[in-house]
């Protein structure tokens, strides 16, 4: 399997990575996506589909961070964060 290097270089002098390396990275990304992870490796998923799903996934994670921040803010106003903190640290870091 030959790895073709594209002939153009970046203006900064950093060479572009090979197409094979890109294929590998796209495959790695695919493994991380909940939508595509469980499909068989032999199933053909285009790179642009992986990129699209990655964007969707990142956006949904950003939204979750937003929602959880709101929820935590509400919760902090109802409890004293100091006392249960030791218990949290213990339970999450076992």
């Amino acid at each position, binding site marked *: 399997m030959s790895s073709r290097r594209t002939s153009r270089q*970046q203006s900064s002098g*950093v060479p*572009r*990575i090979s197409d094979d*390396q*890109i294929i590998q*990275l*796209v495959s*790695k*990304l695919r493994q*991380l*996506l909940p939508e595509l992870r469980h499909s068989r490796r032999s199933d053909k998923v285009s790179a642009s589909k992986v*990129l699209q799903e*990655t*964007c969707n*996934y*990142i*956006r949904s*994670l*950003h939204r*979750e*961070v*937003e929602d*959880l*921040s*709101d*929820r*935590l*803010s*509400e*919760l*902090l*106003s*109802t*409890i004293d*964060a*100091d006392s*249960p*903190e030791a*218990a*949290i*640290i213990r*339970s*999450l*870091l076992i």
Partner: protein
Amino acid sequence: MSATTEQLERNFTHRFLTSLRRINSPDSKTTTTHAAGLVIRRRSLRIKRAAYSSMARAAGSHRAWTRALLSRARSQRRRQQHDVHRRRQGREMGRAGKLRGLVPGGSRMEMGQLLEETAHYVQCLAVQVRVMQAVADHFSSSSSM
């Protein structure tokens, strides 16, 4: 879970909880219901920023996205700027343009680096969400007791 992911989770959890304690500690807790909503809203923003900063620090400075995120956070604090999305020309803006906008520092990356940084960023985000969820669940079960 791999050993490094576990370590990342601990590191992030510790930093994040420390931030939460700092955010929650100010003695000037308002009592009026009108101001309370504003306090909750503003605190939510601080919590969100603390979550991203804690994760960037936990993940380490050898990643371009963590450096980009932390430097953006620093400049926001200093200048109190509205976060304006600037379009960058060149560097294959057409391909993966949306992805570049979602990954910190993505607009400056060449494609290979962008994909690599994206994979790492996604993994860290998933850990961040998991921990925030666990903390929120714990707080809500404590307060309902």
